[in-house]
């Protein structure tokens, strides 16, 4: 059955043993600890909700000079939303805001079945493991929750 593809090793590993499921240090801690001289250092926090599944995540990112230095999350939800969030954090750490926005757009397009070119999708790295969610309409929201939340968060930041 096609659905089983989605619960592959990559997803199960990220779900059971997420690397980024914790709280980031406070911004002030960061300032002193990591980058004491940078005024642009800040922690952005945004909550994402998927009422149909009850998925709920709180996403935190630390942006320094337009680069995502760190990312973490908390919350609860299904394996797909949890793993997808952890995979996303892996992918975006070290990327610029614009790069990260592009990646979230690409991921969302992949899940909606609008982008299928394997070459282009390569950029998504491990997140490609979630490709088959595009055939599970009921789970699309689970997979894109974190990506959607990050996308909005970064666009809001740019507008400021």
């Amino acid at each position: 059955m096609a659905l089983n593809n989605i619960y592959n090793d990559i997803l199960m590993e990220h779900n059971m043993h997420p690397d980024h499921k914790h709280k980031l240090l406070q911004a002030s801690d960061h300032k002193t600890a990591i980058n004491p001289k940078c005024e642009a250092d800040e922690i952005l926090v945004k909550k994402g909700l998927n009422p149909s599944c009850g998925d709920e995540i709180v996403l935190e990112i630390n942006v320094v000079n337009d680069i995502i230095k760190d990312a973490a999350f908390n919350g609860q939800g299904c394996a797909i939303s949890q793993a997808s969030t952890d995979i996303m954090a892996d992918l975006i750490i070290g990327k610029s805001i614009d790069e990260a926005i592009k990646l979230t757009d690409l991921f969302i397009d992949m899940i909606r079945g609008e982008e299928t070119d394997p070459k282009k999708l390569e950029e998504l790295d491990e997140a490609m493991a979630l490709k088959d969610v595009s055939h599970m309409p009921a789970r699309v929201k689970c997979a894109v929750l974190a990506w959607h939340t990050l996308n909005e968060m970064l666009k809001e930041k740019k507008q400021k």
Partner: protein
Amino acid sequence: MNRYKNYFPIMRRNSTLAYLDNAATTQKPDMVIDAVADYYRRENANPLRGLYELSQKATDAYENARKKIAEFIGAAKAQEIIYTRNASESLNLIAFSLSELLLQPDDEILISIMEHHSNMIPWQQAAKRHKAKLIYLYPNEDGIITTAELKNKISDKTKILSLTQISNVLGSEQNLKELIPIAHAHNIVVSIDGAQAIPHEKIDVSSLDCDFYSFSGHKMYAPMGIGILYGKEKYLEAMPPFLTGGEMIDYVDEQTATFAELPYKFEAGTQNVGGAVGLAAAIDFIESIGYNKIIERETELSHLAGEELSKLPYITIYGSNNFSAHHGVIAFNIENIHPHDVASLMDSGNVAIRGGHHCAQPLMRFLKCNFCCRASIAFYNDKADIKQLIEQVKYIRSYFHGVK
């Protein structure tokens, strides 16, 4: 494949499918599918006011179905049967029109925390419109509203009690023969949501003595798009119409209209004759199987599913420990695995169950679980289906557990 599954084309096509989402919608037997197709092949026309043969045939099909439904549920008169689109529309109709008739500011409406959203939100809206209060009844551990709880919540402001007969999550059945007389003794009008009851047991609205009874065709082997509202004539007569237009009128002028007699007053626009024919065929189907057989099989399978699941230490089952009293509905959770993952993975093992809030969010919070899995059984299921379910539960658990 057991002989009952053989009546269902979708089962014949999927011989390894364990379809355990019957509380959401049942599959349809040949008899029902063919009855609807034949209606469109032989006697389709706009019913009522029909002055030619086809239209009379359509009218007969429609009104004979109504009579059959009335008899099936023990209604005193065919005109107490109103066709709707589904149970939700029936419940919206009552919540709107009965509230218009009865509710004054500060009046109280009683419902239970076990209600499906369709028997909850319409009352929230009605309460808001009429500045009335919506008061909740809470069940005991077996999912039962006790007479004490009901008496406790009744006040001299209580006008309406709207209650589900069988919970679509707990599978528990309310003792209506005890509760309804108490409500009536306080002049409270009683509406029963029978969507989960009528597929599983014989209903007799006269002996229940409820004032309204709602259900959907699609949960009892009929097509989608047809539902029923039974109401006592005296209330239906007094209530204002809900949907308006089409043939539900007597006399219309520019600013006002007077409304047709029952049941037409509540049937606006062209009705779903094909759906009514399908529902009548579904009743024939149920009667050909017999409620005795249905109850026997469903009780046995509910018991089996509950017992087997409860042997697994990582499983929580909601509702009564007496699984024979679950009317086919077994709601459960696998420790630390989200119900949506369970349902998706079950699908890989060709087991169809539902995971989520089951349109009963307040009940889910009351149960402190927010989400759960639900296997729901019909008489055409068999022990092999339950075995498949249990195997899948074990497999999913080990799959998650086995991951380093």
